[in-house]
């Protein structure tokens, strides 16, 4: 445009920039709407997954007593005890043992084992798992539950779908999330001027400010988590570079070895030989990485002459997930190989993965992750609600909205309020389903989806504002009663775990109470706006809009203020946002 010398350059820029803002605004609105509901679910379940271990522990209160005994700091002795227990009691015939040592977040050891592989046969992944007491090596019988793992897996695999489909769908949504973030940044022209701005009680303006505030304050996190989310599955989404660069199976194995500590199991040798002691090997690893960072032992072909022991460093306090491990000869105990570094590309990927999973985090950073994740969830939720708030004012007849509007409105309720209800129901399921139920863990997940489907049906059958209030109230009720449930279904409740200083259980119950208060405030605000209607009708010139999560206030004030309201609503929307 600049080559037209007759046009003053300033106005040309203005015209062009309004054009690009409008285009980006449309892109932001429609990509956001297309994937918003799934993204909301991905963000919410992903956020709580930062406390996956803690959720799992809460779901298995029978193991709580093990948390009381402070785990002995003598990790080499624990490792040896667990290996002895595997050898003599749990899996003497197995071809591979994987032993995860207890940690600060999980005081129990988890082990798995698989059958020996035969020569020329592909390794079967069928594994048996057990939880062991690190002090005795005894097996601890725990209920069959998915616990926090369900939310974690759901956030990138979804459910009831082949895993590969789920990942493609999640990847598609994530890509559009990135599009929505970048188009949103371009649309929102006053990022710095409006950095701390929130205009309360101004209807659509308030919703926009809330959406902007949540987006801008968490922007570094939102960009990071979305981009790194794509990177976690990049070899699935875009395999061609790696396939082309590393065409042979041997090269592909080398690539995999750069990316993870996983090694294909090999067949056992015919010759038998006793396994070396592992305590000393663990001490060598501790000397290298620090006392607490030895995470896992993988022992192949124990009792055979070709036994190997791989000791893997955990991800704690290291912002990279590139592999760090030591490989020992399982008979002589000699160090065969050590991986202390990988190439720059693999290290970059390791850092990006670590930023996403946050496994390096201390308690503070884990809470930062959770809060920012929830802020991202709220950003998506407010964006979805904003779509309806904005359009309701322009409906030809607000009492009879068109089908598309009603669809979005119902889906918003079923997702934004319905998912928290279903997640709370899942937690209740972990405690309440009979312990001897067949396929109990799968039934927990069925319960989650059943409740979610009920919320969707409820959202379709009830008037929208009633549905918002009722679902938030139900979520709040379930969350508020969770500590009661905890007390009734374990041998101690919140007071007991507080007295024991068990902050996993006490903290879980307290967080449930905080979330109950939050969801109750959503229900209350939605309900209160309804009650305010007569007042709004009286003050025709100063209509109070809604800023409730249920946005019914906006609807009511539109109705109350009559015909001229849409114009006034439009006038407070900045140029970049107005859709004339």
């Amino acid at each position, binding site marked *: 445009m600049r080559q037209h010398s007759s046009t003053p350059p300033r106005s040309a820029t203005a015209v062009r920039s309004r054009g690009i803002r409008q285009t980006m605004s449309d892109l932001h609105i429609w990509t956001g709407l297309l994937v918003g509901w799934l993204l909301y679910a991905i963000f919410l379940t992903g956020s709580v997954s930062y406390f996956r271990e803690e959720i799992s522990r809460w779901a298995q209160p029978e193991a709580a007593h093990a948390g009381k005994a402070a785990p002995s700091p003598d990790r080499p002795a624990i490792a040896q005890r667990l290996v002895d227990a595997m050898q003599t009691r749990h899996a003497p015939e197995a071809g591979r043992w994987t032993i995860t040592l207890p940690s600060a977040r999980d005081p129990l050891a988890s082990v798995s084992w698989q059958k020996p592989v035969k020569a020329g046969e592909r390794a079967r992944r069928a594994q048996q798992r057990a939880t062991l007491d690190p002090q005795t090596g005894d097996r601890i019988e725990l209920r069959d539950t998915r616990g926090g793992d369900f939310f974690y897996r759901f956030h990138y695999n979804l459910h009831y779908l082949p895993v590969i489909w789920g990942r493609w769908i999640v990847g598609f949504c994530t890509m559009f999330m990135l599009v929505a973030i970048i188009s949103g940044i371009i649309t929102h022209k006053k990022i710095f*001027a409006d*950095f*701390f*701005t*929130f205009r*309360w009680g101004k209807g659509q303006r308030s919703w926009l400010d809330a959406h902007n*505030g949540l987006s801008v*304050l*968490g922007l*570094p*996190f939102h960009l990071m988590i979305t981009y790194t989310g794509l990177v976690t599955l990049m070899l699935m989404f875009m395999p061609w570079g790696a396939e082309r660069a590393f065409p042979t199976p041997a090269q592909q194995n080398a690539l995999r070895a750069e990316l993870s500590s996983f090694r294909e199991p090999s067949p056992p040798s015919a010759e038998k030989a006793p396994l070396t002691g592992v305590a000393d090997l663990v001490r060598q690893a501790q000397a290298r990485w620090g006392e607490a960072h030895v995470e896992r032992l993988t022992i192949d072909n124990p009792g055979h002459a070709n036994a190997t022991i791989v000791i893997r460093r955990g991800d704690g*306090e*290291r*912002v*990279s997930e590139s592999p760090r491990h030591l490989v020992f000869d399982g008979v002589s105990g000699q160090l065969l190989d050590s991986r202390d570094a990988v190439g720059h590309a693999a290290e970059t990927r390791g*850092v990006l993965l670590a*930023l996403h999973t946050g496994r*390096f985090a*201390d308690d*503070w*950073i884990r809470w*930062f*992750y959770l*809060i*920012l994740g929830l*802020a991202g969830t709220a950003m998506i939720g407010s964006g979805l609600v904003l779509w309806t708030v904005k359009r309701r004012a322009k409906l030809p007849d607000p009492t009879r909205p068109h089908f598309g509007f009603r669809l979005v409105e119902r889906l918003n309720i079923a997702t934004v309020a319905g998912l928290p209800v279903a997640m709370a129901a899942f937690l209740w399921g972990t405690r309440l389903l009979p312990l001897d139920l067949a396929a109990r863990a799968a039934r927990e997940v069925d319960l989650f989806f059943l409740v979610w489907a009920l919320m969707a049906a409820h959202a379709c059958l009830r008037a929208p504002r009633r549905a918002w209030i009722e679902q938030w109230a139900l979520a709040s009720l379930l969350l508020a009663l969770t500590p009661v449930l905890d007390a009734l279904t374990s041998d101690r409740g919140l007071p007991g775990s507080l007295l024991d200083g068990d902050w996993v259980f006490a903290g879980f119950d307290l967080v449930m109470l905080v979330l109950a208060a939050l969801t109750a405030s959503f229900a209350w605000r939605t309900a209160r706006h309804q009650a305010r209607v007569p007042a709004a009708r009286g003050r025709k010139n100063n209509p109070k809009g809604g800023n409730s999560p249920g946005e019914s206030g906006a609807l009511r004030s539109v109705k109350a203020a009559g015909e001229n309201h849409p114009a006034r609503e439009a006038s407070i929307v900045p140029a970049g946002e107005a859709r004339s």
Partner: protein
Amino acid sequence: MNPHLSHLVGLLLSVAGFVLLALSMPRHQEDVLGHLLAARASLLMRCSGWGLLTAALILAIQARGTGMGLVSWAGQLSMAAGLVFVGLLIHHRRKTRR
């Protein structure tokens, strides 16, 4: 430095930094102080605000190393910005109710 202490100090520095940055903006000067500040005072606040955020960064890297330090700082910064945002919101609500 103890990790808890380094997070706490980093968070406090960032909150103070963002408070100064907010107060360097005319809108929040009117809201919080009731009047506009002189241009020099605003500039001083803006510079010291950025200075405090930088100090938080240096502290985090000193205490935790580059990787953990950068991540800690990014988290502290986001939390602090959110706290100041909510703080201004509460302040504004209280003022308008009176």
